[in-house]
């Protein structure tokens, strides 16, 4: 079973990487980019076969390690 986790910065948290990308795109001549935010994308291969159990498990992982709750949000997809 595969879990896909998106970790994004909370609103209001400064995103130096996103800002730098936006700047670089601009310099490369890409106009009309109003905002860029960079996050992390993590794919997990799980032995678990039950969807709900997998989700609960990955939720734990996010809280304990994968995301820093002070600055980040996470979203989990299981398939």
């Amino acid at each position: 079973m595969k879990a896909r986790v998106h970790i994004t910065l909370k609103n209001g948290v400064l995103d130096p990487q996103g800002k730098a990308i936006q700047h670089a795109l601009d310099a490369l001549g890409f106009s009309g980019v109003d905002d860029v935010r960079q996050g992390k994308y993590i794919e997990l291969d799980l032995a678990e076969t039950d969807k709900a159990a997998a989700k609960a498990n990955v939720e734990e992982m996010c809280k304990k390690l994968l995301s820093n709750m002070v600055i980040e949000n996470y979203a989990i997809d299981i398939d």
Partner: protein
Amino acid sequence: MKSAVVTFPASNCDRDMYVALEKITGQTPHKIWHQDSDIPNVDLIALPGGFSFGDYLRCGAMAARSPAIKAIAEHAKRGGYVIGVCNGFQVLTEMGLLPGALMRNASLKFVCKTVQLKVENSDSSFTNRYNTGQVVDIPVAHHDGNYFADDQTLAKLEDNGQVAFRYVDEKGEATPSSNPNGSQNNIAGIMNERGNILGMMPHPERFIENAQGGQDGRGFFESIINSLN
């Protein structure tokens, strides 16, 4: 002063910290391996710089979940001194012992150079051998030293005098160009409310003798010794 230095797998300033503490305290520091859950009874625990777990995922994240961490937190809870330098600062924020987070430098580049720091308040256990407002030279070397906290936290830090060091120019002004990483309010180091935990990005342990380029870092360690007496 009895001290201990923690080593995570890819700590790389642990020896430097150890040597500095040994030279300045005159006592042999203990070594704590990140897997140890029993730690020695000491006055100060130092979390050194480096890349703990490669700085993968987030700097200090994996280190903050190591077996030794629980005991370190307990030591802090008992009022024992804890310092985190560079990666150690990142670990302390990841542990939740200090507020805020350290983000990628605004330049997105690693920065290694000597910076000027203003000692914001010489009342603390970590700064009492400096004068308030004194400008000292200390090197930085990091990729993620861009201090971030929400406005409320920031205001609290400032109001409580928890900002220990700020990046400044030679005149002591906290200007954008004297800020090596984009930190909010030019923050270089902060303390917890109780005043027994400090995290800072610059490396005082690298500047303890003139051959290294300066010795302004000594005062930091001497302050801790002083506050124990």
